[in-house]
Every structure is written in structure tokens, then in C-alpha cells.
């Protein structure tokens, strides 16, 4: 991957508020939330970063401040280089960020996903609804305090809930979590039951 060596000076000249961000690959910048949209527009129109690769967020866990960070990955289809922009959400309880849908139409669903998983509201988004979970789902599953197994709640359809009497339950975790283990051969690293010393009948040893 080639690196855009002129980029840091080009960004810091236009945006003194942008600071370099630790990065192992491409150039990366921190920017105050208020300047984020202007910087993205500048990168797209002037510096040739015309493609929004990804838009995601980080939850630094409850108690941290700033708690939520939104991250944009941009790609230049002319220079074939990447850049990463990160901006902290101003408030931790009601995180919000200006939308990038006016710059890239593709930001629409990315921002809906970030809203769905983290509860970050993108101000100015034309249609900010949940995209993966159903509309009435009460939690934001990728926040740090949310358990992998989930929390009990109701399913979306009131008729079916009344008929079946079944709701969302916390998933049983005996033998789990069923995640891949890093650093092993592929055949060993596959998701599978791991700690089987405890189950529904036998308590988990502490």
C-alpha cells in the first residue's frame, strides 16, 4: 500500500484543529466533531479521497469520556491511498455526529447500522431508523455494557407474542462463547464448544 506523504501537511494547513492519530497503516487524523463534515468534504473535493470505504464507531465503555468515537475510512480512486478520520462524540449520554449522507449516498446505511448498534444519532440523516434489529428493540447491542447473550425483551409482532408467549431470552452460554480462537491452525480455530466443565445442570466453577 502506498502512502500519501503530502497528506498530513495538506490537512493541517486547512484544518489546524486536526491532530495526527496513532495508526499502523494509513495516515489518520482526529478532528473535533464540528469540523468533521468540512474535513470530509475537503478530502473528497480537493484531495481526491472520493470513496467512503467504511463508516463505523468505537465504544470506549461506560465511564470513559469521550465515550463514543465515529471513524471514517476514505479511499482515493486516483491516488490509490487510504485515510482514516476519527471524531469523538461531544456528549456521552446522547451521542450525536453530523451526517455524511450529503457527501456520499452510501453513508446512509452505514450510519443506520452505527445508530442501530451504538445508538449514535447522525444529525441531518434523512431516514435514521434501525437497519438490523427491529424498530422497537430497546437496546444497542455493540455497546460495551450489553452482554453477548443478549437481554430479555419482546419480539416485534404483538399477535405472535400473544399466540406463542415466547420472547427474546438471553442465549445459553454453556460451552461457549462459540468464537474462533486466534493463533491456532484453521482446523482448531473454528468456532466450537470450548469450556465444557459446566452446563445448565452443573454450575460454572469460579
Amino acid at each position, binding site marked *: 500500500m502506498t502512502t500519501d506523504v503530502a497528506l498530513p501537511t495538506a490537512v493541517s494547513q486547512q484544518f489546524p484543529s486536526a491532530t495526527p492519530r496513532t495508526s499502523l497503516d494509513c495516515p489518520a487524523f482526529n478532528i473535533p466533531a464540528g469540523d468533521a463534515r468540512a474535513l470530509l468534504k475537503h478530502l473528497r473535493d480537493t484531495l481526491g479521497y472520493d470513496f467512503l470505504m467504511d463508516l463505523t464507531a468505537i465504544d470506549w465503555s461506560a465511564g470513559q469520556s469521550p465515550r463514543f468515537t465515529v471513524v471514517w475510512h476514505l479511499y482515493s480512486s486516483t491516488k490509490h491511498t487510504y485515510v482514516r478520520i476519527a471524531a469523538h462524540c461531544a456528549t456521552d449520554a446522547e451521542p450525536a455526529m453530523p451526517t455524511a449522507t450529503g457527501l456520499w449516498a452510501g453513508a446512509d446505511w452505514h450510519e443506520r447500522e452505527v445508530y442501530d448498534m451504538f445508538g449514535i444519532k447522525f444529525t441531518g440523516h434523512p431516514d435514521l431508523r434501525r437497519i438490523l434489529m427491529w424498530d422497537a428493540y430497546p437496546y444497542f447491542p455493540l455497546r460495551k455494557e450489553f*452482554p453477548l447473550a443478549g*437481554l430479555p425483551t419482546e419480539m416485534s409482532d404483538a399477535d*405472535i407474542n400473544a399466540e406463542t408467549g415466547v420472547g427474546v431470552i438471553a442465549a445459553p452460554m454453556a460451552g*461457549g*462463547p*462459540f468464537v474462533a480462537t486466534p493463533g491456532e491452525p484453521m482446523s482448531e480455530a473454528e*468456532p466450537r464448544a470450548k469450556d465444557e466443565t459446566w452446563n445448565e445442570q452443573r454450575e460454572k466453577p469460579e
Partner: protein
Amino acid sequence: MVTANPELAYNSKIEGDVTVTRADAAINWLRTNSMWPMPMGLACCAIELMASAASRFDIARFGAEVMRFSPRQSDCMIVAGTVTYKMAPVVRRIYDQMAAPKWVIAMGACASSGGMYRSYATLQGVDRILPVDVYVSGCPPRPEALLDALMKLQTKVRTERSWKKNFSAA
């Protein structure tokens, strides 16, 4: 040269135009051999379901090749794949729309138990919302396993008391 053997066939000249059987036997015979599936293909198991329908495995040998995408015309829902909590009410509603008699095959680990998806988004086994007749293990099961499940379901249907269940007042 093969010639028809009239002695083994039903001879209407001797026995008349009447045959006698049990109602259950006749009804179950019809039901077992034309069990039209409702393909509830939700994940990768649906690919194996498609393979079962194709020429190598040929589910038509068991009279279940007519995949009906309308629940009104189908008899057996094959839940093939991961059922999310978002999809679960839809699966149940489609099951409710199927005309009785109806059966359910839970195909694969996810439909049977949630599989490896022990997470907030996945229904932990479709038997929480549907009465499942046959569970198929595998991730995904091979088409032979699905055919075996279908044959097990046919065996089950063959022994049902269909007349008593559906046509008598009691």
C-alpha cells in the same frame, strides 16, 4: 420380452370395481407421497435444500419436489437456516397460514438449537415457536440427511390416526 401378469394385478372382472382398505391407510398414503414443502430458506442450509431438489439427490423420488412458495399450498415447512428474532414472527405467521395437516422439519444446527449463534440476535431453536416433527443435525446437513428426515416424517405420517384426528367429532 416382458408381459403383463394379470394374476398379480387387480382383476375387476373377478373382484368387481370395489376395493376395501382402512381410511387411515388411504389418507396417509396420499399424504406421505405428496408432501409439498414450504421452503423456509434462511441461510446456507437452503443451498443444501436446493441441492436436494436437484437431479443428483432428487427429492421428487419421495413426492416432495413441489416447493410451494405459498403457505396455502404446502404441507411441510422446512426451516433451513438461522432464524433471527427479527425473522421469527414471520416464520410463525407463515406457519399459521399453512393449511392443516402441516408438519415442520428443522433442518440443521441453527434451526434446531440456534447452532453456534449463541447471541442476542438469534432464536435459540425454532421449536420455541413451532411444533417441530423432525430435527436434522449438521452444519449444514448433507442432502441425504434431509431426505432421511423426509422419510422419517413419512414414516410418522403413515402411522397417524388421520381419520379420527380430522373427521370424527370427538
